[in-house]
């Protein structure tokens, strides 16, 4: 008996994991547009994709179907989402994309989550001719990738832009006389952290900053106290961490405990999560981090309200809106092109500009969205964009004053 229950439970769980379908449709006359989604529901990146990726798909599909579907050449087609968990494993991402293309015969496939998984899936997207509008890939290889995979698009920006955005904020503060020139920098020893630190190091030196502490730590380190103590002992004016969510939380907590006396405190991925402010509250005030949005714009306010109503969770202040805007690009391209022919839709994306929740997205010759937010700051409980490469609505940076 017990064994059977357990087996049933197992079967139900795996079924639930692999086959979470979107809403069902009563209207049997119109073929739905089948849209495949592959991203981590388990594995190391699942925490991030649960915040920034999956809720947007549910929100978007719900909105489209609530208004009757996508208007393709005058007929309304509902969308049907087929979801797969890639377990944060590139091999599984590729298999799932292949399965969506060949067995589920998806009309479109949404770009996977994260830089590595997107790059891993690029050849298979290209082979089956699917446009791949990435929203969570950060790379400086945009030119090479788009030359090789002509239907791959980039919206979140490059590591160079992100790193230089952070340095620019420091330069402005120093020139205003608010901070000195001593910077402590740490990074997670992973592709993301290494690339960002490598981009920031020369930029800091060129701007005349003195890097008084520079260290990396392995991903998943269970005690970052030595790192924080080392950085604090170097007496920096600014602390920069190219970190992932787990270490972003740990570094912040330990710096708070250590009472690290810095005027600028920067952490990368995770700083823009609502849970970050939820965890640190007032201590998070004036902490800066990667990303940001024009949080006060009506478009973002509406998006945030809809996100909370549809999924019960707040969007984060960076990748969430970017992910949603990539869905808006796809939506407008399908309706604008008036077809579900993938080649035509891809060309439409290249030729047109799109009005989205983050503003206008207009891909350049390398399929790159050159205008993106680079730095945000927690101000009065909202993570507002303070620096960007051409987005509107940046607010002034404030100095961090203590941890209370």
């Amino acid at each position, binding site marked *: 008996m*017990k*064994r059977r229950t*357990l087996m049933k*439970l*197992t079967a139900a*769980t*795996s079924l*639930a*994991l692999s086959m979470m379908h979107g809403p069902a449709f009563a209207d049997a006359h119109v073929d739905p547009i089948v849209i495949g989604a592959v991203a*981590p*529901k*388990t*594995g*190391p990146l*699942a*925490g991030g*994709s*649960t*915040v920034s990726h999956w809720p947007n798909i549910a929100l978007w599909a719900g909105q489209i179907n609530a208004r009757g579907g996508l208007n393709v050449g005058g007929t309304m087609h509902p969308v049907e989402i087929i979801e797969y968990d890639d377990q*944060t494993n590139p091999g599984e991402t590729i298999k799932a994309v292949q399965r969506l293309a060949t067995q589920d015969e998806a009309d479109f496939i949404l770009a996977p989550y994260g830089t590595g998984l997107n790059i891993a899936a690029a050849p298979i997207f290209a082979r089956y001719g699917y446009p791949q509008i990435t929203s969570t890939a950060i790379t400086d290889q945009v030119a090479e990738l788009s030359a090789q995979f002509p239907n791959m698009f980039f919206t979140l920006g490059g590591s160079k832009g992100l790193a230089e955005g952070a340095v620019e904020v420091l330069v402005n503060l120093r020139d205003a006389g608010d901070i000195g020139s001593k910077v402590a920098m*740490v990074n997670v*020893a992973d592709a993301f952290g290494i690339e960002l630190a490598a981009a920031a190091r020369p930029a800091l030196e060129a701007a005349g900053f003195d890097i008084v502490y520079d*260290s*990396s*730590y*392995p991903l*998943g*380190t*269970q*005690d*970052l*106290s*030595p*790192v924080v*103590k*080392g950085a604090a002992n170097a007496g920096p004016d600014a602390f920069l961490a190219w970190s992932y*969510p*787990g270490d972003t*939380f*740990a570094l912040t*907590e*330990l710096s*708070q*405990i*250590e*009472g690290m006396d810095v005027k600028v405190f920067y952490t990368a991925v*995770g700083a823009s*999560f609502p*849970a970050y402010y939820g*965890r*640190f509250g007032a201590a998070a005030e004036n902490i800066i981090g990667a990303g940001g949005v024009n949080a006060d714009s009506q478009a973002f306010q509406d998006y945030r309200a809809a996100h909370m109503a549809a999924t019960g*969770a707040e969007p984060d202040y960076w990748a969430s809106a970017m992910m949603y805007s990539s869905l808006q690009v796809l939506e407008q391209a399908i309706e604008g092109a008036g077809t579900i022919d993938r080649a035509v839709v891809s060309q439409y994306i290249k030729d047109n500009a799109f009005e989205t929740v983050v503003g206008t997205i207009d891909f350049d010759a390398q399929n790159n969205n050159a205008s993106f937010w680079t730095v945000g700051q927690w101000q009065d409980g909202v993570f507002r964009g303070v620096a960007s490469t051409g987005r509107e609505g940046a607010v002034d940076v404030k100095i961090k004053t203590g941890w209370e």
Partner: protein
Amino acid sequence: MDILITGLLLGGTYALIAIGLNLQYGVARIMNLANGEMLVIGGFSAFWAHTNIGLSPLLTVFILAPVAFGLNWLIYRVMMVPLVKRAKTRGQLEVDSILATFGLSFVLVGLMLAVFGGDYFNYSYLAVPIRIVGDTYALNRVMAFVMAVIICGLIYLWLNRTRAGMSIRAIATAPDAARLVGIDVRRLSALTFALGGAVTAVGGAYISTFLTLDASTGVVFTLKALIIVIMGGVGDVRGTIVAALLLGVLESFVAALIDPGLTLAAAYAMFITILLFRPQGLFGRKPT
């Protein structure tokens, strides 16, 4: 000095991660690859109790421990007993249990996803500085260390001062001979497995006060626990404690004096060195 204390505190965390697996592997001979998931479940429970009903993790464990004990006892009775019956040798049981618990880890991850979602979770508990000989440390880590000392101490006393403990040590040493002298091996194995699971879940509750967890992080802790248990010697509580403290102190010294990037490398270097010179682990007995 502060490096040493940081290291000892980290060692305490590691002991919490590994001590349960040591019990499960040393006596019940179940190499439990779902150990990390049990730890995350403990962390989830503490998180849930703290955020929803405002219960301190220090109190949550008094509910958590019996529940986790029962759950692990069930896992042993339902999943492991058939394997134990079928296994002709210890080696076969180890291989079978590795496969079975590997599968179990996926089931547990799936259940946690269904119940809690895949989001990161953490909360603020005792995240305040405490001064020890002139340096500041996080109180939640110090609390976890104290709990590790208490838990390990109790287990050690129980194993060495009570009749049940003696029987368990007998099983760990010579399971066949233990049966001959009238020890109910299966009952005590189930008991030890369940106790190991409960200790791991309690450890998870303390660890969740200072680490950010999500449904998929269990495997990280399983790996760490495996290294520590194997280094310390299978089936000896002292070995696990010593190995955990050594590892913590080593990582802390490397991070502070050489480079934080090398902590992982140093940990594995120590692992290899110990296995080269003492393949049975620090306190393990040579196989006869």
